[in-house]
């Protein structure tokens, strides 16, 4: 828009010369019509106070008005000219219906008005050129604004639609997967039970080794295992695979010697039964693991949100962590959660809480990946007071620049080129919305190397 002082001076002179005559000033009440669409209008108005709205009917192909298709064309405030097009084009027919949005006061000129000092300022039309330009520019910028607004609205709609669809998709998928994983888990148990039974009738030692493999809980460091396996390989003159199995069965050479002598003498053969047992164990663990992920996805994707008292914050954090396992691989996760039993349960919804943690942790992971942070670490710390609980999620990534601190909570903000990785929603915007909704607060404290989001939520339902 042209905004020079000279231009302003010109406009002010025109307004003073032409629109300052009380006989050509009148007022309208809110809702009254200044001009009707398609009707003759030989005046050029200047809005002195109040707002007006311009409406127009949509036209069909032959140019006829479509009934009930009224839409808003523009809205104007004090200082705006109305009827510029009909007045200067000498059509004297209004293209819009102008309605007073508030009580308004308008001044006008019509075709009978003579030009003031034409020898100095030129003809009437020449004098009004700045007005026309002003008006055109105004309208132009209005159109742009309008388009941008519309674009943003569509974008917003799109994203919420997308996340809704993904949510549904995830929920559907989770349901299907849940069944499949359930079958796998159950059938593994059946197979395991059958093998055990069969082996018992087949040979005591085979069955024993099978069960030892399946029920193996001992966790040894791989270094221990290796050195022990090497020791057994030499000591008992057995093959490397058999020695590895023996190393897991017997924690030291003496306990290996104490094993049933028949087991030791036939370890090459029996090792396989231990391995099969161990395979069954791995299958059971994998099924359990998969079931956990499916449950988390279901929680996130399933849209039925019901906030209620007694929601477990601990549980929501472990759901979030298991859901983010792929993102957290290769990173250190330090969770200082304290005692789950004594930690207050809050009024809230599991899905929403999980969404909050997932989005913050995921954001941290993405930032650290992008920056290639060495020894990336995510630290989750829980604390509470009488009224509130606080969850602090800290990462040692590059940090959020001061200029972006507000922006990152806006729906369309992203530092990532390709947005869709998990499609859980709108990232930090969702966090902000949910936390606001709970009557909680988000504190962002960021310097390079340490970024902490502290979410504080009230324990009880906000009044």
């Amino acid at each position, binding site marked *: 828009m042209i905004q020079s002082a000279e231009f302003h001076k010109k406009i002010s002179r025109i307004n003073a010369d032409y629109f300052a005559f009380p006989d050509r000033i009148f007022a309208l009440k809110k809702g009254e019509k200044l001009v009707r669409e398609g009707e003759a209008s030989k005046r050029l108005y200047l809005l002195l106070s109040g707002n007006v709205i311009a409406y127009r009917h949509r036209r069909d192909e032959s140019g006829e008005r479509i009934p009930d298709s009224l839409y808003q064309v523009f809205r104007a405030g004090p200082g705006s000219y109305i009827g510029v097009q009909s007045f200067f084009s000498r059509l004297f027919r209004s293209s819009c219906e102008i309605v007073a949005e508030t009580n308004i006061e308008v001044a006008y000129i019509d075709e009978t008005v003579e030009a003031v000092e034409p020898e100095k300022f030129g003809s009437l039309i020449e004098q009004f050129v700045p007005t026309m330009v002003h008006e055109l520019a105004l309208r132009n910028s209005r159109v742009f604004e309008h388009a941008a607004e519309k674009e943003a609205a569509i974008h917003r709609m799109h994203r919420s639609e997308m996340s809704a669809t993904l949510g549904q998709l995830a929920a559907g998928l989770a349901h299907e997967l849940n069944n499949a994983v359930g079958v796998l888990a159950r059938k593994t148990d059946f197979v395991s039970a059958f093998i055990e039974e069969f082996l018992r009738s087949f040979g005591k030692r085979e069955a024993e080794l099978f069960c030892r493999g399946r029920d193996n809980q001992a966790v040894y460091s*791989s*270094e221990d295992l*290796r050195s022990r396996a090497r020791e057994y390989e030499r000591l008992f003159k057995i*093959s*490397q*695979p058999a020695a590895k199995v023996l190393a897991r069965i017997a924690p030291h050479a003496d306990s290996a010697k104490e094993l049933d002598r028949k087991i030791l003498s036939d370890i090459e053969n029996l090792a396989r039964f231990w*391995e099969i047992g*161990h395979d069954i164990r*791995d299958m059971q*663990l*994998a099924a359990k693991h998969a079931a956990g992920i499916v449950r988390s996805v279901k929680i996130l994707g399933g849209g039925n949100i019901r906030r209620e008292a007694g929601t477990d914050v601990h549980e929501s954090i472990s759901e979030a962590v298991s859901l983010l396992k*792929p993102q957290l*691989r*290769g*990173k*250190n996760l330090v969770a200082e959660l304290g005692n789950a039993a004594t930690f207050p349960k809050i009024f809230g919804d599991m899905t929403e809480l999980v969404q909050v943690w997932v989005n913050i942790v995921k954001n941290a992971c993405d930032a650290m990946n992008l920056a290639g942070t060495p020894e990336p670490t995510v630290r989750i710390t829980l604390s509470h007071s009488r009224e509130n609980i606080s969850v602090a999620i800290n990462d040692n990534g590059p940090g959020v620049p001061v200029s972006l601190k507000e922006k990152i909570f806006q729906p369309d903000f992203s530092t990532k080129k390709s947005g869709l990785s998990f499609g859980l929603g709108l990232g930090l915007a969702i966090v902000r919305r949910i936390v606001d909704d709970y009557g909680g607060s988000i504190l962002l404290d960021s310097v390079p190397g340490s970024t902490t989001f502290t979410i504080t939520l009230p324990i009880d339902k906000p009044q």
Partner: protein
Amino acid sequence: MEKITILCVDDQAEVLDSVVRDLRPLQAFFRVEEAGSADEAKKILDEICRNGDYIGLVISDHVMPGETGVELLGAIFRDDRFADTKKILLTGQANHADTIRAINEARVDNYFEKPWKPEDLVATAKKLLTQFILKKGIEYKDYMPILDQAALLENLRGA
């Protein structure tokens, strides 16, 4: 017969176990060692070197706590002691940049995506170990049943 070791590296115990089990057909001829991290892998490598044995092949995952697989394989590539050692990157999570680094900085001989087909992994391991044995001038006759035919014939042609 020389002691030639295949070293498998993965931080997920079950996955590591599967890799080792898939390599069972090779265990009559090669030792198979397993490591849960790059650090541990390096310790094993040093140990085997001290014993004067060969590291024929390293199969490593990429995403692991601590050093990544690509970094580990890169370190092996730059280490004179392992100049002929073959390297396989076995991963589900390497992005484009990692893959480029794996080729440029670690000269991996093969790239497997998880989940892998056991028979493909074994065939590739055989091929690479055959090349290793021939390159090192180890008596190949001892390994005849396990060697990759095409690689062997290709090498003997020039003999």
